[in-house]
């Protein structure tokens, strides 16, 4: 790696190193040590957050924010608890229905934000209420039935490698290629980087925004699906935690909330870092209810580190948002 590319990827490398260190500590403090079982449990939990973080990532990339991520995940999860109980063809349709739910929610968000021109933070606050209400309507109390063969296939290991890690790797590769080698992927960065310039370059802001939201929704659908694989139930109440953690994860992974900066590897590292910290705390004997304190602390540290660059900004005008 040349010096330039090191410098340019600093936002991503710091959390990556932090993650590696914490992961080693985690494995060493775990009472059962390093084994496929331990890693699988950890990876399954991590995968949930990775998918949730991707749901947030695409929207943040175009300088938005999605407060309905958790609600979309909850709704997809609830749909999954009805739709993927069967076998064969019905199972496949079920999976499509779950992913379609997420996609549709994201698409609706995109329409409201891009065509309705309502700031994303308020728009998704409102749509989030609708989605989480719908989830609660479909399943007032946690429950449901999920095809356990599929669940086993999705949550165990392929040889020594946890299936969830394979899934994460697959999704990262797909997104990395898309973001780097397609005009659409680059347009997402372009719009987040400078709306005005993107428009002058001939990129459609409306289409790109809607697509970003829809793609985020699809990821939320994947997250909802995978939660049903891990928990075997549907639960309408899981939303708020996921919204919060999805934002925390991408901030940790070096993705700028100002749009246009950060990549899929950062998303994964940020999510897994957050999960590892939570897991470490679980074993450290801290009261589980006090966990928010550390989650908040990590988020605060991450965001402070992320803005350290601002201290080097020597033109005060550059500090102000455009």
């Amino acid at each position, binding site marked *: 790696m040349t010096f*330039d590319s090191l410098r*340019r990827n600093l936002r991503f490398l710091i959390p990556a190193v932090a993650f590696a260190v914490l992961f080693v500590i985690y494995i060493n403090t775990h009472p059962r040590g390093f084994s496929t079982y331990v890693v699988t449990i950890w990876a399954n939990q991590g995968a949930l957050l990775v998918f949730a973080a991707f749901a947030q990532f695409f929207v943040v990339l175009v300088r938005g924010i999605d407060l309905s991520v958790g609600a979309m995940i909850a709704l997809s999860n609830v749909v999954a608890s009805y739709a993927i109980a069967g076998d064969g063809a019905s199972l496949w349709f079920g999976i499509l229905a779950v992913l379609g739910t997420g996609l549709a929610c994201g698409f609706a968000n995109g329409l409201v934000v891009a065509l309705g021109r309502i700031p994303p933070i308020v728009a998704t606050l409102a749509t989030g209420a609708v989605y989480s209400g719908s989830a609660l309507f479909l399943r007032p109390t946690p429950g449901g039935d999920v095809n356990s063969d599929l669940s086993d296939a999705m949550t165990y290991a392929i040889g020594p490698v946890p299936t969830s890690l394979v899934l994460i790797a697959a999704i990262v590769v797909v997104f990395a290629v898309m973001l780097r*080698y*397609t*005009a*659409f992927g*680059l*347009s997402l*960065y*372009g719009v*987040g*980087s*400078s709306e*005005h*310039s*993107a*428009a*002058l*370059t*001939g*990129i*459609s802001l409306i289409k790109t925004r809607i697509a970003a939201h829809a793609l985020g929704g699809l990821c939320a659908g994947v997250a909802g699906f995978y939660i049903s694989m891990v928990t075997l139930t549907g639960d309408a109440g899981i939303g708020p935690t996921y919204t919060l953690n999805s934002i925390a994860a991408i901030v940790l992974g070096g993705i700028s909330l100002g749009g*246009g*900066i950060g990549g899929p590897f950062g998303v994964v590292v940020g999510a897994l870092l957050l999960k590892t910290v939570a897991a470490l705390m679980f074993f450290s004997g801290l009261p589980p209810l006090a966990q928010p304190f550390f989650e908040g602390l990590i988020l605060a540290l991450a965001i402070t580190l992320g803005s350290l660059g601002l201290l080097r*900004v*020597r*033109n*005060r*005008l550059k500090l102000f948002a*455009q």
Partner: protein
Amino acid sequence: MSNTSRLIELSGITKTYGPVTALKNVDFSCAAGTIHAILGENGAGKSTLMKLLAGVIVPTAGEIRLDGNAIHFAGPRDAADNGLVCMFQELSLMPNLTVGNNIVLSRPQSRFGFLCRSGYQEARACLDRIGAGKIALDCPVHELTLAERQLVEIAKALYQKPRLLILDEATSALGADAVEKVFSVVRELRDAGTCVLFISHRFHEVHSLADKISVFRNGSHVQTFAAGAVDHDGIVALMIGQSLEQLFPPPRKPIAESVAPLLSVRDMSWADELKDVNFDVRPGEIYGLGGLEGHGQQRVLEAVFGVLRGVSGRVEIGGKPFGRRTPFRSKSEEIGIAFIPEDRKTEGMIPSMSITDNMRLAGLGRDGLLTQDNQVREAHYKALLHRLDLVYGSLEDPVASLSGGNQQKVLLSKWLALNPRCILLLDPTRGIDVKTKAQIYQLLSDLAEAGMAIVLQSTDYEELVHLCDRVAVFYHGSIARELSGEMLTPTNLISAAMGLSGIAHATEAAA
């Protein structure tokens, strides 16, 4: 068929923005295989015309014909697909993307949704062609200097294979060598049958490049003629609608060297944009700062006003050192500096707020947080608006409803009502009509007569020559030359700005 040579024709084009008319009933045409210069003052409607052709905006009325057929552009991509490509003055590069991606995205060539490698090879070739071989394709644009960004912008325009190429102040930040290289490419394009529309403030560039010249004034197309048909003075007269003598106030008496300076800047350095800048401004003087864009002249004024952090060197006001500078301290009564920023819309004003609220903003809270109004200052505001002849509907209207010139008058009143001792102006007449310009020049001249120290950064050479007592020309962050008296001519300004000290000396010898 006379139409065959006419690539593009505009007839009866009008464009209005709310109360402001940018173009009035314009008829204009240009032919393939020519370099066509568009001249006009700031605010004459040139940029609006270019935006129309590039599909960024649509005309309020009128028709655009391409190859004789009426055409409507859905957006910049649509115009580019028809071969109409613009290199924008306000750069259109996306800062977080790499150079290569910025260029390739302007005309995506993809197979199965993936961008082709050949696109990047073409992009590389375009950069090499204009002499920008050292700009790497994988470098993010935000790491480039202003001059490099301009080169990328030109390469991006070339990459789109234009039939009509619009260069809007394309070379304002480039040095002499780079400009020459770009011009030779432009000539090659012309010879290959491309029509090039060329906007520049530099007359020598227009003379060396253009085949045809069109002059715009106040949103109207005044005249089109072959290059060389009208001499320099004639063109200037067409542009401003009057002679230079009418535009500028009569020269003031020079200030004696013995007068103690009001503002002194000593050994000022900042980041890698300013290096050891020294100058003095005496009360009653108008001190000009010139140079190519991005060579540090704007930064100096920002550093004096306290906008920049980590500035080394000293600033003295009235002989007393002025350290720990912030805008709040700069405007205080004991210091008394006023600052007119470069970008009126985002830095100078709050467009959605009313004229009065904008005007009061700097003075608010100056006499403590509880006293709302200061009778003296209120009277001052009134007098200034009257003096500057502000044209407005109601003082309650948002300031955005005013024309650019009137906005600038509000901005000047806002600061002058604080009775500053020294006023720093960043390109105050950019995009302003001629009448307002003359008023602002007269005002500045009067203020100087009254003993104010004025520092004027400008991109308009005439302004620097006719209004200033002395002009410092910046080159790579330091003052390359200070011109005054006989030496203060447009030719000397330009050659010093481009780092050509030789030409300046030649003129010196002749004089």
